[in-house]
């Protein structure tokens, strides 16, 4: 005759195995549900890197020697300097289209880099005219944090873009003003723009537009010439 303690042990083991079976089945179902949910979330289309954002181009017109605003939307990088570079390269790329009123040769990414710095920061190799005339004490007493101060953009163009740009007073001036005004339209804190070509300072874009001076973005649209 089976002892009583063995009957109890058998019953406990039997119930435990039934319970474990139920738990295993439930865990398997849960894992299956999670897998299905994951596939649904992943989707079947490639995810967009960034949603399109509104952008304003200040487009040059050789016929009238003016700039006009054109709105469009495309994805932009988050980082401000990469953002500025992406906007300018798109602006200059559209001048290569057959419909352009300011025709420029086709050039892949003519803007090599854009550097942004707060206005009172010393620019590399090009000291600010304003800070040179201010008392030294003012450098340490600026009440505005760097995140709210106006910015200087330094636009570095490729040598091949400068060398193949049509040579002329009007065409070169309009390219420079279009870059300055477009930067200001999309990054309103950019108040001044300086230019480099291939990482170096150059006297002119291609014989005419003065690249040694600092351009004030607020004045760019006004200086672009208006029909009387």
């Amino acid at each position, binding site marked *: 005759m089976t002892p009583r303690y063995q009957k109890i042990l058998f019953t406990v083991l039997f119930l435990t195995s039934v319970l474990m079976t139920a738990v295993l089945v439930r865990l398997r179902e849960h894992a299956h549900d999670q897998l299905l949910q994951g596939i649904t979330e992943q989707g079947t289309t490639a995810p967009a890197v960034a949603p399109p954002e509104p952008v304003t181009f200040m487009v040059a017109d*050789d016929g009238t*020697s003016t700039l006009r605003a054109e709105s469009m939307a495309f994805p932009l990088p988050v980082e401000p300097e990469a953002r500025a570079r992406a906007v300018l390269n798109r602006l200059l790329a559209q001048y290569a289209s057959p419909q352009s009123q300011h025709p420029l040769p086709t050039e892949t990414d003519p803007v090599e880099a854009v550097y942004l710095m707060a206005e009172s920061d010393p620019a590399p190799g090009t000291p600010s005219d304003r800070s040179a005339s201010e008392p030294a004490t003012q450098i340490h007493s600026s009440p505005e944090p760097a995140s709210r101060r106006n910015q200087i953009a330094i636009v570095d163009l490729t040598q091949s873009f400068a060398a193949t740009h*049509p*040579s*002329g007073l*009007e*065409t070169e001036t309009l390219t420079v003003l279009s870059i300055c005004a477009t930067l200001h339209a999309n990054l309103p804190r950019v108040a001044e723009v300086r230019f480099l070509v291939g990482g170096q300072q150059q006297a002119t874009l291609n014989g005419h*537009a*003065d690249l040694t001076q600092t351009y004030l973005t607020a004045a760019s649209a006004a200086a672009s010439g208006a029909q009387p």
Partner: protein
Amino acid sequence: MLCVLPVPAQARRFVVVLDAAHGGADTGAVLSAAGTAGGQSGDRQALEKQTLDKQALEKQTLDKQTLEKEMTLAMSQQLRALLVARGFTVVETRENDQLVDADARAVAANRAHADACLTLHATEAGTGVHLFVSSLGQLQPTLLMPWKTVQAGWVQSSLKLSSALHASLTATGNGSGSDVEIPVTMGRTSLPAIDSMACPAVAVEVAPWHGGAGSEVVDVTDLDYRTRVLQAVAAGLLSWRSEAGQP
């Protein structure tokens, strides 16, 4: 560096300084009969026309390319003849193919105590005539002004001179017998030579004209077109002289 502004002379001649841009190693733009200049052309219409007209293209490639420095010198010499015939005293910043830097051009203009200074350019880009005045803001002229911004004391009169030239260039036919107007644009830009000039100063850039007979493109190398533009400039200077109270 400071510039001592010239003291206006009494009962004097009406002096015009003609500044032929570029020269020597600075060739300026490469110009050609219809925009074949090695990728420099902004004249898409002309390029399309060439593609369609093989014979014209063959002829154009045989043509000698003209450099802007040659064209501006030719314009300066032609305009000098027109102005001397109208009683102006003319001073040129260069009379041959030599490199003249921006400071030397301004020194020549300021020594001449000029009543008008014209810097002459030619281009393949755009259309018609482009007039540019310094982008410096107007300042009250003083006896001593910083050399790089002397023009700030003259910007208002430079704008008036630019308007006088614009009115003459856009006058119907410009006295040439043609009733088709040459488009003229006006703008402001940084001009190192002009920015140091103590005179009413305008840069005149001549571009191809897209309004010739049958809407053909007339290049800046076309003598008739150039003559028409320069005659209008001379007429504009005559009205500028009249405004100044000189006959």
